[in-house]
């Protein structure tokens, strides 16, 4: 086994894992608070990739030359609009089903996912879209004996630091603000939280907004890194991010990030050393295996159902 390839695959895996982790946060928060899988979350991420490309093209067209300024503006606009999409999905498709049976919101979520994919396909066309490479250059990573074991592009450094920063911000919000405390209370017991004067509808909407905002960060970063996307990217990435959330323990924020990194590393090493054709099969097999062996994940608590 070549040290260079291992090093490079580990670096790629960490970057991939940071992205999975960011998207997994949206799944894990919604699942924690509502006990439901938000199937449309992968498509929210897809929407954010399109929004980022559109805003970037608009800003370039308007004559913004500086890359950092453009990136910050694009990030802000993408987060704003993606969060808006997240809020609308919750308001239109999930809120009316708050008290219906278990199956209804899941089917409604599938419907939303189909709507978002086909809305984008119709309005933006089915072909691949892309953005130009904005950040050029890389640094070499050397082992102690001076042998190069891999290279890290500046975009990858940006991805990992942005992921860490936004996860840190989210963790701080959840731990130290009134909003975060209300979220945790709603997650523990929605009825009790409501009795204590927390507007749970408002909290659930906020959770969707925060999840969508994290997906927006991921969407922008992925677009920067890979440069190309289409209307269907949300599907596979969505399942993988959900796998990451389950792997880390659904409902747990650090778990989502940990699960993302582990899944990203595994997938990257698998496609580097075993087979690229079957890397998706591998990821889905991991999902089934985790659910069979340890459904509560690495950091989660086993679910106890009360009557």
């Amino acid at each position: 086994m070549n040290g260079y390839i291992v090093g490079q695959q580990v670096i790629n895996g960490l970057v991939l894992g940071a992205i999975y982790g960011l998207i997994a946060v949206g799944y894990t928060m919604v699942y924690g608070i509502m006990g439901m899988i938000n199937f449309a979350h992968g498509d929210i991420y897809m929407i954010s990739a399109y929004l980022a490309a559109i805003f970037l093209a608009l800003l370039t067209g308007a004559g913004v030359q500086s890359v950092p300024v453009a990136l910050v503006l694009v990030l802000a606009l993408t987060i704003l609009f993606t969060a808006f999409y997240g809020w609308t999905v919750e308001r239109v498709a999930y809120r009316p089903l708050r008290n219906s049976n278990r199956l209804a919101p899941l089917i409604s979520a599938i419907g939303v996912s189909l709507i978002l994919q086909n809305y984008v396909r119709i309005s933006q066309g089915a072909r691949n879209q892309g953005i130009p490479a904005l950040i050029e250059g890389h640094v070499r990573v050397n082992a102690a004996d001076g042998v190069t074991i891999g290279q890290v592009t500046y975009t990858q450094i940006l991805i990992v630091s942005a992921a860490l920063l936004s996860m840190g911000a989210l963790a701080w919000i959840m731990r130290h603000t009134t909003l975060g405390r209300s979220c945790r209370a709603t997650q523990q017991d929605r009825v009790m939280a409501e009795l204590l004067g927390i507007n749970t509808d408002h909290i659930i909407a906020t959770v969707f907004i925060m999840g969508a905002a994290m997906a927006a960060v991921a969407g922008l970063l992925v677009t920067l890194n890979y440069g190309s996307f289409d209307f269907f990217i949300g599907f596979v990435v969505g399942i993988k991010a959900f796998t990451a959330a389950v792997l880390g323990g659904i409902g747990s924020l650090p778990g989502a990030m940990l699960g993302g990194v582990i899944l990203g590393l595994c997938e990257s090493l698998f496609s580097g050393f075993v087979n690229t054709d079957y890397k998706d099969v591998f990821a889905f097999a991991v999902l089934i295996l985790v659910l069979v062996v340890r459904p509560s994940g690495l950091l989660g608590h086993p679910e106890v159902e009360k009557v």
Partner: protein
Amino acid sequence: MSIAASLKHAARWGGLTLLLSLPLSGWMLNGYQVTTTWHRPLWLAGGVFVGTLLAMALARLLEMPPLRKLRWRMQTKITVTRRPALPAWEWGVLLTIAATLPLWLSTYWLNVMILALIYAVLGLGLNIVVGLAGLLDLGYVAFYAVGAYGYALGSQYLGLGFWTALPFCALLAATFGTVLGFPVLRMRGDYLAIVTLGFGEIIRLLLNNGTEITGGPNGLPAPAPTLFGLELTRVAGQGGTPWHTFFNVTYNPNLRAVVIYMVLLAFLALLFFCVGRLQRMPIGRAWEALREDEIACRSLGINHVTVKLSAFAMGAAIGGIGGVFFAAAQGFVNPTSFTFFESALILAVVVLGGLGSSGGVVVAALVINILHELLREFSDYRVLVFGMAMVVMMIWRPRGLLSMRRQFFAVGKNL
């Protein structure tokens, strides 16, 4: 609501749509540039505004006394009745009409009808899993693929014929369903949805990448069915005698489609009857009870794993049979027929027909397929409309458009 309030409400949703759709529809990506298309968000917002107004007007209209009574009668409710939904002679008439269709339908429409009936079969199978047992299976297409490829591969490597393939592929798909379902069905219901989704993709990727065995993206040929050992093709390909040579008649290229249609129709009728009976058997009651309250059922001694597994395996077996019919009708299988869209489509059939209502599912399968053929030029919008319909149905009428009747058995007076 007063007119002013309604206008305000509609304007709010219209404004929201305008804002939301502005970046995604207002500009179109074109290479690294964008083309401005501001008319599109304006049209969308206008549509939402008018649509909201119309919906509110309709709701207002339905509140009026003469219509209120009608609405009450239209409302989905479970009717308990001694009469079956359709008397036997009506069934006879329906089936006779369906059986005479090949006499006057063109080849094209006959193939459309075959596809519609395949969807009806798949819908009934998925309806057992989703509608009756309440297990959301998003990878139903995997079992469909197992059936179709089971037939194509079986005929190629094992020399299986159509009639042997039917039970064989049903068994094969049921085995897949059991192996997948056994570990997953013990857990919370929602996980099943995502696991089946992943499983559906695994099957498709394996079929797509296993080029040596499955032919990869190029697919495999599937032979035409035989009838009492006689082949329905122009030239015998499976070592038998062609039908037209045996009876000394001119070759009819429609024969293959007609035979598949008739067998499929017979199977659908049988399946419909069996599902109706199953619903009234202890196992069917257990499915529905588990769907409503799992904890209560377990406390009453129902083994939730085996009961769920039976529904899951039965749905899988029916999916497998649907796959055999599909492969035989197309004469060819490849992985593009088994994407997630297909699963979503079958789910849409079940949801629009009404979860748990067999008649509704069959009607929905027929309507969706025939409408799709009639509205070919709008096919871009088809999946979009399905998605909207799924959301609207869940909010407005989760039990389907047609009301469900449930027969009961009463002890007669003279007993």
